[in-house]
């Protein structure tokens, strides 16, 4: 290992995440390899093989569906369980994703965010975790690898406190494969921060119970309501846990969202994940020019901190939502969440889509978009560095019909 805990060192993001997971003393780790999640689980497999994870069982399985299913079994047996996946893998386990939250099992899963196919694409965007944003999992997004590591520690604490599963979303390659100065997780502090898992329900000999009943019309609505209300009430612990974490570890990460010169700015850029780093640079540049601009990094995407965000934007005139996922029909999901938060506020809102399938989001492109926004000349929906020539040509061809040349 490149460094001892407590002091920053140059580490790949996946390794830092693996160390954080290890410090959380999981009992069962189960994953199926998929780029770009692989380095995380490879590191954990190695630690397990070297018996650095105590009694932790590392299980190699035949699919992501099995991987999360193993975690379901482990969690329902009262064990702390972890998995990681990306893209297609998340979709393949989708049924189990819903099942985990529906059964109130506090599994923690890393998403190495990656585009979903087809066409197949292994590079970063966030359409995978976005596709399952409403599956009842808490979703925390990391801006950098220190956050990525630290959010996992908070994720276990949170999951086991509210009895809901948590996804920690980490941009594939951009974070997972990036080497950064990272302080590896301190075991002693982690132990102080994260108590042993005490399940609200578990397979056990003393008090046999039947977990996973069939629930009919007479109770299903209530089950859904109760689940959703627990989900919504998780915002408070997300915040308090992040504060507690900051106090103990001396590093701040997570919470609901984070201001960057945005409290009094007229224009506020809102984004998830690693693109916030670039956005902050651009904000700095524009502020140096005298612009009233700031940014908000959303850490807790699910549940969405709508009321808190609306309050935080009370001084803003416009928001520009930059996001790395785009769905036919709804467009950018983050934008939709933000708009819903700002209903009747009179604040103008722009949706900016970029970075799909791994395309780089360049500072100069963002500068141009933000300037346009501040000048009210930005389209309601715009795409960063879209090749208009290709679009124009292909639209023509497409509209000529499937048999057209």
């Amino acid at each position: 290992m490149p460094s001892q805990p407590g002091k920053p060192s140059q580490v790949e993001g996946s390794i830092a995440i693996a160390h954080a997971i290890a410090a959380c003393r999981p009992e069962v780790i189960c994953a199926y390899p998929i780029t770009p999640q692989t380095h995380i689980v490879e590191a954990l497999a190695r630690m397990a093989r070297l018996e650095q994870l105590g009694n932790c069982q590392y299980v190699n399985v035949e699919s992501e569906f099995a991987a999360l299913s193993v975690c379901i079994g482990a969690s329902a047996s009262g064990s702390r369980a972890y998995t990681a996946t990306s893209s297609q893998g998340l979709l393949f386990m989708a049924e189990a994703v819903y099942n985990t939250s529906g059964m109130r099992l506090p599994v923690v899963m890393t998403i190495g965010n990656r585009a979903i196919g087809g066409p197949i694409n292994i590079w970063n965007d966030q359409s995978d975790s976005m596709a399952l944003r409403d599956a009842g999992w808490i979703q925390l997004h990391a801006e950098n690898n220190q956050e990525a590591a630290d959010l996992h520690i908070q994720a276990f604490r949170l999951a086991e406190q509210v009895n809901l599963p948590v996804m920690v979303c980490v941009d594939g390659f951009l974070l997972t494969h990036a080497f950064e100065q990272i302080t590896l997780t301190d075991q002693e502090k982690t132990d102080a921060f994260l108590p042993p898992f005490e399940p609200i329900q578990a397979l056990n000999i003393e008090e046999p119970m039947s977990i996973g009943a069939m629930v009919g019309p007479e109770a299903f609505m209530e089950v859904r309501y109760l689940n959703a209300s627990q989900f919504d009430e998780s915002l408070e612990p997300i915040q308090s846990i992040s504060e507690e974490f900051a106090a103990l570890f001396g590093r701040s990460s997570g919470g609901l969202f984070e201001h960057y010169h945005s409290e009094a700015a007229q224009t506020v850029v809102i984004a998830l994940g690693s693109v916030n780093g670039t956005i902050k640079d651009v904000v700095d540049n524009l502020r140096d020019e005298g612009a009233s601009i700031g940014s908000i990094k959303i850490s807790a995407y699910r549940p969405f901190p709508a009321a808190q965000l609306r309050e935080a934007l009370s001084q803003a005139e416009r928001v520009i939502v930059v996001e790395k996922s785009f769905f036919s029909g709804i467009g950018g999901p983050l934008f939709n969440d933000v708009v819903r938060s700002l209903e009747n506020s009179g604040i103008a809102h722009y949706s900016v889509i970029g970075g799909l399938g791994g395309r780089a989001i360049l500072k100069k492109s963002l500068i141009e978009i933000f300037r346009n926004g501040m000048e009210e000349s930005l389209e309601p929906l715009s795409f960063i560095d879209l090749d208009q020539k290709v679009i124009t040509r292909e639209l023509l061809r497409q509209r000529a019909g499937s048999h057209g040349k």
Partner: protein
Amino acid sequence: MTTSTVEFHQTGDLTAGNRLQDEQQASRQSTQQRFNSLTAGHRACQGCGEALGARFAIDKVMELTGDRAFVVNATGCLEVFTTPFPESSWNVPWLHSLFGNAPAVATGVAAALRAQGKSDIRVVAQGGDGSTVDIGFGALSGMFERNDDVLYFCYDNEAYMNTGVQRSGATPPMARTATTPIAGANPGNPFGQGKNMPLIAMAHGIPYVATATISHLRDLEAKVAKAMEIRGARYIHIHVPCPLGWGSEPADTVKLARLAAESGLFPLFEAEHGEVTDSSKIRRQVPVEEYLKLQRRYAHLFGKSADAEGIAAIQKIADTNIRRFKLLREEE
């Protein structure tokens, strides 16, 4: 089979028990202290073979573990009729997740127990033929190849009964289901399809594979006992007639299981590490008609438009099994 020799000639070990026998020699099901892992009040149809098979199997597991076992259940009839809110019929620690993931969930349970240092608690998983041979096949195969410490019970009633009797990969040739109707030139389920899960299980080289049936209770229990002596992935495929899906009389459920075994259509055998080690010999061989004619799913083989060729083709399956698994007693 590893059944015990019973010094009792009235029924030997063919009945569940007997007033003249030691309780040690009796089946678990005949004892007053049987666990009733699956208790009364469940919503299975009258004469449900699966309810019976599950109680037989899990009760034996509970006996052998001193009531220290966890049960993972796939979606299906068994899950639906035992745990509709607000009542559960299970007296054992029981977990249901999804249709296709029971083996993986069980792997997770076993892994957790190992991590917790509670490997004395044993893990069994169970599902119907649909979840086992079709939708959960990948997960089961994975559990097998990893040799996870799970005993998996497949309760085979030869179709998707819970959804209204549709064809599964375990549906036998010519059987009528809602998706293999009596229509067209080749009515019922086609020949040459379907999979033999016990043989596939054996191909994984796992330590123990067996077939069992609810009509041969002691044989079933002996196989569970054998399986529980072993660690690693184990598979027991239990034939459980379904009055609803097969169109049979509820009272005939055990009889049908018996006829399936005695005709050779459902061979009873054991295998270790991929090799057949033993088979239960047929006691009173019957032609397949005896079995088929009690089931309305085969009604098109009989009556006005009787299909002698069809019956002969099914007989051939039985004959092949008899040869392949050496189901007849050797002439002395």
